[in-house]
């Protein structure tokens, strides 16, 4: 079974799992009284945001190891993780405002998670642009690793500056969305959704990795270490 097939299966399982989350969240999880049904956006928004950040951290770590080991597989993984991270960031940046409108009355709020995801999105765009602008695979891998490592080191500073900024304008947090201090059934749904997104991340990255592997082999640019 080729890598692409494995990736497709994992993605399929992830999508089925996500369907399960949809059913469970929409039909079997109690509505939160203060925020109303809109609160259920939380089950998609937060896992996607966690994986947006996790994907960038993995890009950075892959970059660190690439600089020392010079193994093209690490570079391929970093490229895959960055692309998948961008997709998840898009989800966060669309569901965020949709959730913000009914709760805080405005489409965009400088909420901590939304703001840091926006900065991560710019980081991803920069990363993918650098990968697109460099022809030579080894040079591209090295430049991407340098940018990935800087991105990894930037994540804590994004949180710190957003945290300091937020203590300046505290939003009326009705339900603290970040910490899952939720009653049992809601927490279970949230964890279920996190599992679904994890599967999707792994499935997508595997497929994207297989894709760049095929593309490199076809152009004969990457020696096949796999």
């Amino acid at each position, binding site marked *: 079974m080729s890598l692409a097939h494995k990736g*497709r299966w994992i*993605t399929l399982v992830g999508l089925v799992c996500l369907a399960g989350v949809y059913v469970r969240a929409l039909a079997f999880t109690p509505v939160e009284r203060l925020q109303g049904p809109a609160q259920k*956006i939380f089950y*998609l*928004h937060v896992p996607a945001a966690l994986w947006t950040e996790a994907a960038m951290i993995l890009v950075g770590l892959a970059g660190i190891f690439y600089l020392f080991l010079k193994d093209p597989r690490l570079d391929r993984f970093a490229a895959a993780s960055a692309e998948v991270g961008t*997709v998840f960031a898009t989800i966060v940046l669309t569901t965020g405002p949709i959730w913000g409108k009914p709760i805080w009355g405005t489409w965009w709020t400088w909420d901590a998670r939304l703001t840091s995801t926006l900065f991560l999105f710019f980081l991803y765009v920069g990363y993918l642009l650098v990968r697109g602008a460099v022809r030579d695979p080894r040079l591209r891998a090295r430049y991407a690793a340098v940018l990935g490592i800087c991105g990894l080191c930037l994540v804590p500073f994004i949180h710190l500056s957003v945290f300091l900024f937020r203590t300046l304008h505290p939003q009326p947090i009705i339900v603290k969305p970040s910490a899952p201090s939720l009653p049992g059934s809601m927490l279970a749904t949230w964890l279920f959704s996190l599992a679904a997104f994890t599967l999707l991340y792994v499935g997508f990255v595997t*497929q994207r990795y*297989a*894709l760049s592997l095929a593309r490199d082999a076809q152009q004969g640019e990457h020696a096949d270490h796999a």
Partner: protein
Amino acid sequence: MPDVPQNAGYMVAAYIVTAVILLIYAISLHRRTAKP
């Protein structure tokens, strides 16, 4: 008992948007890796 805010529409919108984004990406990956 304060009545629960009726904002289910936003929830549905968010769930649809998420599904659309994920499906589009899944399909694009599927097609791109399918080509020999």
